[in-house]
């Protein structure tokens, strides 16, 4: 026989029209473990193996370590010892999160992680505790997202928990089965969408029980009806079930027992040690699954295809000693005290290329490459066949897919070599698929290493997902392997997961000093910080749990999200630091959150000092606090300014409040205080403010004196006061103000002119104009008269203007003729005349002519 054939289909065995192969995976490290003394449960997809001392074997020296956890190569990972004296493990299983679920004889459920760390405990009710649990099952619920537990008590009652990780998991009693006074011959849990049902077999009868119902079921026809079902195996995904009866019949069909897929008489009536599905498939359309039956007493495992007829032969494997079988999605694992073997249906892609006599393009390409290696001309002939059929692309694809399904690195290499040989003949080729498979195989081969012990197949990895794999590696603390895999496969979010978990572990376990740990973490992050988003908060929580507060605080420095960092610091009473970080974030809302927390509620001098110092050091926080107080509690703001010797702001705050104090006496008192505060300020401009304040004091005092003569004068400003006095013709009083407040001539004249015109006191205005030469000219007189609609008066003052201003003013007064005259007298420019003319407009020809004549006279 050819060597290559040997590594190809040599060990394939046909079952119906498909092949099964048995692959030796490992020689177990546990060397001759007496497996029959244990219960064995292995997590799917090459997961860890848990061994628990079988309570039935109680008599013979029970070890102190109740449970042992191995990798799938039988290397001991951890042992779990129980503190309690007498714990009997009745049920065992792996949860969907790959935690170990242990059910004891009193119904307590212990959950451990893969490292043997206890995660949770669920206690049973008194009824279960009293009657004791005699059998227990752990099973996936809610479509495989949760984990449930079902127990059978010594009183032959069933109790169920549908989600052991829920907030308050409790056992629910299932309906009793009438006349059940001995242990049922077998039972299986059927997790439905909303409820859980249990199929129970007793005395040749089947019952389907729910919480409030018990439905007798008629066993499917034929041999089964004549004997009770002694073994059941459920396929969760499709809800199909296999039943084995005491008269050696195997029936496979739908779980509602309505549809039959096959019935076989096995010819063996011994109770099988185990029955399980070999391979789970998405649909029964692809009816190529098989049922494995284990008879340890016969040293034999048999595989029955579910589509084969009664007459076809099962595949039979002989075993050496006790074996346990563990179902996988593409086959089953067979664990014995010596070896770990995988039995699987040969994947279709492998059959295509390596199958005996296959004429698929992939097979031809594979052969061509072998010939090419030998230097044989046949290579060319084979290639010609593929090229002629125009199926090179398919050939390459088939070889790549076959490589993916192969578990032997040597075979993978040969297949990939063939693929790459074929690629050379393609005009255009997208390398993505090839690269992807190479990368994945690299990872699969790495984790299959004995030390790691995760012998996943390609399809298992596909189902388990790379993220799932990373989680498992991280749970096993294989960070150094997980990190390169994440990098290699560019797994989004993978790096953060690995690093976060690593850091949490480091914080939890390490006895190093805070500084060393922080350094170790930053060193790891050093190259990746910025593009990796480390979940620092969970690391920090871990540090807090480990009682390392200082470490937690230092670690928080690396939290990039201020909205996490600041509250976390506050929870650890690190308010000053929280403030610093809040300000650095620029998020004023966070700053405010810290302020609220820091603001002293009672008279605690230490806290008050801390708060005040924080405000002093952080102007932004101070600004925010000031604003908050101004909006909600002005008194607090006064106190704040006082404590910080902030005289100027304090004074200004009083200025702002002035309006509320209507009584002049109160106002004066407050103004004096304000003045004092302004004086305390050291900057020179405060003197100006003090002066202005004193002037305000003087003004109010004056107004109080005047109030009897002019009601309503209080509260006015200086200019208004002067204005009002002049309007009321109280000239002496106005003059008094002028002197006291040293009003400039210009200002006083402006105010007086405007006040007089407003009061329409034309005679006084004229008297005033003549009193002396106006320091502000006479234009303001003209404008003020005009504003108060008195052209006649205005004209009087236009005459006093310099000629060049007169023209404009006459025009304002709508006296263009006069304007023209003045323009002529002042030898005005042509432009000036044009302006006058344009104001008249083109229609008024009479006036235009007159102006033009004036203009020409010049």
């Amino acid at each position: 026989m050819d060597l290559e054939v040997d590594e190809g289909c040599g060990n394939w065995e046909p079952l119906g029209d498909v092949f099964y192969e048995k692959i030796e995976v490992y020689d177990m490290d546990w060397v001759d473990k007496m497996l029959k003394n244990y219960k064995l449960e292995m997590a799917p997809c090459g997961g860890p193996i848990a061994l628990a001392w079988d309570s039935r074997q109680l008599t013979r020296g029970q070890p102190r370590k109740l449970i042992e956890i191995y990798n799938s190569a039988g290397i001991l990972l951890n042992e779990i010892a129980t503190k309690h004296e007498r714990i009997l493990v009745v049920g065992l299983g792996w949860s969907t999160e790959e935690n170990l679920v242990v059910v004891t004889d009193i119904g307590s459920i212990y959950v451990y992680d893969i490292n043997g760390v206890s995660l949770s405990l669920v206690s049973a009710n008194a009824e279960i505790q009293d009657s004791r649990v005699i059998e227990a099952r752990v099973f996936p619920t809610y479509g495989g997202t949760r984990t449930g537990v079902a127990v059978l008590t010594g009183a032959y009652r069933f109790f169920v928990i549908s989600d052991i990780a829920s907030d308050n998991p409790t056992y629910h009693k299932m309906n009793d089965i009438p006349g059940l006074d001995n242990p049922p011959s077998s039972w299986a849990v059927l997790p439905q969408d909303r409820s859980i049902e249990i199929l129970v077999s007793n005395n040749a009868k089947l019952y389907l029980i729910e919480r409030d119902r018990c439905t007798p079921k008629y066993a499917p026809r034929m041999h089964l009806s004549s004997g009770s079902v002694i073994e059941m195996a459920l396929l969760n995904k499709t809800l199909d079930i296999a039943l084995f009866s005491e008269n050696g019949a195997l029936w496979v069909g739908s779980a509602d027992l309505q549809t039959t897929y096959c019935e076989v008489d096995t010819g063996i009536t011994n109770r099988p040690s185990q029955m399980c599905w070999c391979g789970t498939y998405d649909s029964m359309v692809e009816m190529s699954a098989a049922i494995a039956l284990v008879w340890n007493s016969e040293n034999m495992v048999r595989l029955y295809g579910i589509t084969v007829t009664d007459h076809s032969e099962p595949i039979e494997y002989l075993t050496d000693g006790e074996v346990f079988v563990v179902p996988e999605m593409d086959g089953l694992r067979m664990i014995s005290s010596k070896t770990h073997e995988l039995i699987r249906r040969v994947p279709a892609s492998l059959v295509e290329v390596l199958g005996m006599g296959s004429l698929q393009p992939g097979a031809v390409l594979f052969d061509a490459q072998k010939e090419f290696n030998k230097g044989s001309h046949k290579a060319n002939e084979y290639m010609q066949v593929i090229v002629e059929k125009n199926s090179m692309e398919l050939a390459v694809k088939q070889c790549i897919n076959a490589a993916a399904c192969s578990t032997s690195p040597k075979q993978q290499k040969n297949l990939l070599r063939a693929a790459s040989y074929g690629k050379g003949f393609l005009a255009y080729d997208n390398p993505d698929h090839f690269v992807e498979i190479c990368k994945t195989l690299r990872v699969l081969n790495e984790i299959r290493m004995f030390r790691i012990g995760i012998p996943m197949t390609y399809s298992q990895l596909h189902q388990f997902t790379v993220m799932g794999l990373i989680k498992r590696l991280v749970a096993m603390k294989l960070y150094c392997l997980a990190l390169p895999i994440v990098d290699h496969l560019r797994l989004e979010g993978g790096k953060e997961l690995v690093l976060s978990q690593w850091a949490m572990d480091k914080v939890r376990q390490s006895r190093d000093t805070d500084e060393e740990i922080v350094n170790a973490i930053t060193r790891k992050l050093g190259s990746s910080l910025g593009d990796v988003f480390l979940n620092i908060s969970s690391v920090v929580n871990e540090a807090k749990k480990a009682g390392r507060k200082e470490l937690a605080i230092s670690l928080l420095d690396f939290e990039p999200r201020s909205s996490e960092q600041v509250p976390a610091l506050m929870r650890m009473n690190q308010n000053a630091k929280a403030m610093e970080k809040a300000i650095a974030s620029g998020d004023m809302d966070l700053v405010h959150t810290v302020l609220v927390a820091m603001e002293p509620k009672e008279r605690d001098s230490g806290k008050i000092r801390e708060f005040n110092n924080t405000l002093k050091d952080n102007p932004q926080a101070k600004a925010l606090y000031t604003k908050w107080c101004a909006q909600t509690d002005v008194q607090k703001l006064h106190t704040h300014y006082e404590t910080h010797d902030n005289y100027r702001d304090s004074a200004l705050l009083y200025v702002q409040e002035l309006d509320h104090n209507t009584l002049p006496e109160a106002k004066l008192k407050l103004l004096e205080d304000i003045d004092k505060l302004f004086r305390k300020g050291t900057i020179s401009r405060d003197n100006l403010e003090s002066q202005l304040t004193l002037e305000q004091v003087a003004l109010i005092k004056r107004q109080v004196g005047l109030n009897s003569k002019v009601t309503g004068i209080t509260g006015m400003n200086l200019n208004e006061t002067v204005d009002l006095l002049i309007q009321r013709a109280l000239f002496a009083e106005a003059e008094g103000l002028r002197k006291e407040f040293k009003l400039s001539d210009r200002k006083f004249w402006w105010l007086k002119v405007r006040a007089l015109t407003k009061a329409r006191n034309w005679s006084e205005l004229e008297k005033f104009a003549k009193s002396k030469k106006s320091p502000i000219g006479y234009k303001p007189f003209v404008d003020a008269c005009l504003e108060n609609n008195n052209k006649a008066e205005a004209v009087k003052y236009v005459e006093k203007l310099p000629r060049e201003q007169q023209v404009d003013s006459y025009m304002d007064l709508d006296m263009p003729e006069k304007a023209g005259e003045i323009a002529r007298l002042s030898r005005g420019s042509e432009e000036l005349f044009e302006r006058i003319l344009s104001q008249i407009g083109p229609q008024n020809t009479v006036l235009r002519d007159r102006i033009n004549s004036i203009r020409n006279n010049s």
Partner: protein
Amino acid sequence: MNDYSSDGIKVSFLRELARSDLLDHIKLCEGSKVLFWDPALKGPFNLIIDWPILKKHGVVKMFDLQEHIPSEVLENKWQNVVLLIRPEVKMIDLIYRSIRSISSSQRREIDFHIIFVSRKSTMCMRRLEEYKIVGEFKNILELELDLIPFDHDLMTLENPASFKDIFVEQDDSCLFQVARSLMTLQAFFGVIPNVTVLGESAKKVLEMIERMRQEVPATDKPIVPKIENLILIDRRIDLMTMMSSQVTYEGLIDELYGIKNTQATFPGAAFQYDEDVQETAASKMVALNSSDPIFKEARDLHFNAVGLFLTSKARQISAAYDEKKDAKSLSQLKNFVGKLPHIQAEKRALEIQTSIAALIRKGLNKQYYESFAVEQELREGLDVEKMNTFIEEMIYRQESLTKIIRLIAIQCIAGDGLRPKLYEFYKREIVQAYGYHHLLTFDRLEKCKLIYMQEKNQVISYPTLRSKMKLCIDNVNEKDPTDISYVFSGYAPLTVRLINWLTQGSQRDGLTYLDDIVKYLPKPCFGKKQKNAATTQERSDGEIHTLVYFIGGCTYAEVSALRFLAQNHPNKQFTIATTKMLNGNTLLDSIVEPSPRDIIPDFLT
């Protein structure tokens, strides 16, 4: 006309975002809903959503948030009261009074909800707790609405107090909002590779966005940046422009009538061209945006060019109508009828704009021109160290304080501060004429460096900037401008001059080019490349997109100047963002301490 949205910078996505957010929130309340609006939010939301859509989603009525719940709500047994507010303490106070106006048994009949725009603040939550009314609300939600698209090239936070908050009160909340809005833009348009920081608050914003980017993990495939440059401008870089009187068409409408959320209200009597309408409304609200074909072209013109433009448009339109006479054949007539709706729309728009232009011409009285001439002189540095008699007389005449402060501020900025005697003079005169409480006004003006006393070692920068950056230009052509200085009749906004330099095609790191200018600008000013930005792709047309973010406010004149730049440099494309559209008056409104009595005659309305 240049269409900025041509190359993928579509700011309208912000509108879609806010609209779907709002509807999502509203959908949370089952049954009939009544909306109560923070009055300041109504304008912005008008641009985002309209009544029919709200009605479709079960909104039965809308009110302004007020002191009491209208009895209508109870009578009709409407189930939900949704309060939409800005995160301000005074709004919480108002809510407290409002819901306390009905009895607790009545309150139980209604589900109350608060929607904070744009975030739930600790301050407000604390206030609600102090009032012990948190439990009254079924939902307290956030609606993230930062930038509101005003036009295809213009977005604003419309944060009314942004200038005062940042520069007077040192409250940086608004900067955080700026940073957050930039993160949203970057999420859509890619990380902007080149950032130029002008001024302190600009630096703070850059630091925040760098920090925020660290908070989210980098994606494997970053978006190729659609915007190449980001220029962050602290408004204090150029306060002169802010204080100057605008003379562009849109700028003048804003100065004289106030544009709020792209709308302005005018006296209705001015719009009497429509003969069919018997009565004219007291006031008329006009939407001012680029969907108006006439306004779109007129908005950025110098006002002196608007008359000419409108006349020529009128001629074009009547010529278009005349085509009907010339239309001989049926196909020509059909062609004409096809164009008719467009011509009619243009005609209506033209009528409206002509009326507005007439209103503005009336508003530009002698005093406006005199005042503008004084501004011009001051900007040119004429006698800035002396008391200005024009300003003095304005005070004596008790004219608009805002106008006076604007002029003093211009004098102050042009002189790099006021001489102490002069400062004292103006301050005293204003206190004597307008009231003692203006000590507060001056305190604020000083904090934001609008009016301040010159110090002994004052660095003199304005004259250098004026000459080096060619801010003041003589003989500017207002009707057919060749330089951005037309927007202030001979004064070019420093901001836009800087932006122009910073976006010179070949020197993208424009700041090194501006080395001897930078030292005269408020610090810090620097350029930086953002880490991990995807490499930009050369566009076939060689266009370079720049996002300009004015922190503290922006004027319409600056927007016009930037549009002018883009029009005259085919490879420059600008998108403008700001915290608030402002002019000198609206800016000072937030700063001038209001008097308890109405002593300031309001010339502005």
